[in-house]
């Protein structure tokens, strides 16, 4: 009787240990896949949403979905599987945003011809990098403040300040030379 109890107890321990071990292995595999694919998934999410905060959310959502389906998804199907998850989230997001009419009616996209002076100016300053041009365009064409530009670009406000300063200085030199 006593022996039977001991056996049963060790069997339960065995089951418990193996499930702990399995969960540990799952987490380690997720960590490995995360390190391998997070950059690509984030970049893709950003291209679908154009917003860094959403790209961050969608990337973590996709990896959470991967964790839920880790036993069904083979490594060879990645990162395509993660891309599909992100894409579905993005389509759903834009459909919802459009249905709420925050985009379709509130923002009439008009007068696309009057802003060429800035483009001319920016294209003349050949020393400017994309990040400088983005900061200048968002600041002076879109009228965004540094905080908004930081949200859009993922740079710190100090970096935005430096980029604006450098960009303006270069434009100034270009125009006065």
């Amino acid at each position, binding site marked *: 009787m006593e022996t039977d109890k001991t056996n049963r107890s060790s069997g339960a321990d065995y089951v418990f240990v193996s499930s702990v071990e399995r969960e540990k292995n799952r987490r380690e595999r997720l960590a490995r896949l995360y390190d391998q694919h997070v950059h690509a998934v984030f970049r893709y999410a950003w291209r679908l949403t154009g917003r860094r905060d*959403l790209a961050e959310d969608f990337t973590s959502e996709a990896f959470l979905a991967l964790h839920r389906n880790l036993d069904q998804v083979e490594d060879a199907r990645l990162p395509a599987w993660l891309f599909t998850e992100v894409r579905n989230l993005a389509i759903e997001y834009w459909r919802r945003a459009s249905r709420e009419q925050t985009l379709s009616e509130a923002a009439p996209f008009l007068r696309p011809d009057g802003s060429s002076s800035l483009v001319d100016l920016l294209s003349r300053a050949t020393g400017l990098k994309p990040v400088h041009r983005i900061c200048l365009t968002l600041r002076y064409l879109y009228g965004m403040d540094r905080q908004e530009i930081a949200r859009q670009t993922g740079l710190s406000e100090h970096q935005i300040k430096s980029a604006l300063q450098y960009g303006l200085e270069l434009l100034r030199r270009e125009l006065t030379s």
Partner: protein
Amino acid sequence: MKETKRAANNMPHEDPEHQERLLMVETGIDPAVWREQGHPPPSLLVASREDVLPQPLAERVTSHIELCPSCTRLLEDLLDPDVACPTLGEITRIRRRLPMPSPPQRPWKTLALIALTLVTAALSIVAVRTLSSGPISPQFVAPMPPGPPAPPGLVFRIPVEPAPLKLPPASTLAWRSQDGGPDQAYLVELGQALKPYREGRYREAAVRLQSLASQYPQSVEAPFYAGVSHLLAGDALFALEWLTKKPLVRSHPLYDDQLWYRAAALEQTGQWAEARDLLRQLCKLSGGYQQKACQLSKR
């Protein structure tokens, strides 16, 4: 007083708003004219390329982009691979939301760094005493990654320690004041990029200084300290590349240092003859490296 002087010299100001005013005065272009309504938000511009927008909205955004040079240019820039890269903060935040083992904490790393610092300090003291008392002991080997075997007759090892920080005098003003002149942004960023260097995180320092050197091609300090950081991190080839990028004139405060560290990088990459030539040059100068260079070049 300072402001008046600056205005008189027509020097550019650190503040972007001030630069904006200068731009307006000097070019006759009012930046306020650029601010127009009616452009789609940047998020829509980017998403319009990926076929995820509902059809009517996608059509409107696409037709706007076709007619608007500003948005076309902005979209091109936004799609630059560097811009879309996640930052370290974003990667960390995403990781925190996932059920994963946290990245390994390494308390041993701190202990190892302390031990390494103590050993380096002890060896440096031994080195200084040895060098100041006479010829180098054949047993003396500086703490550094082993280089390729030296050919017979050319056996020396150049000890490498962190180079002293020699920054332009204006750098002290750049930290304290908001109006330090046109190079202020560079100096402020240089100070920040040198922080990991001061703290002994040489790989990180090398990356940051390299990026600064690319951003400011005229800079001298950034490529030099990038090279030294690579050397201290054990990447002699990268070190050599960065230390030869910007040859200095003899009057520059970093001239001796550059020769010394370049010699060390050459020695570590197996170019002993070239390293010895540089040591001989240093031996002829009356700088802080003269004695060490003379002793090493004679070997």
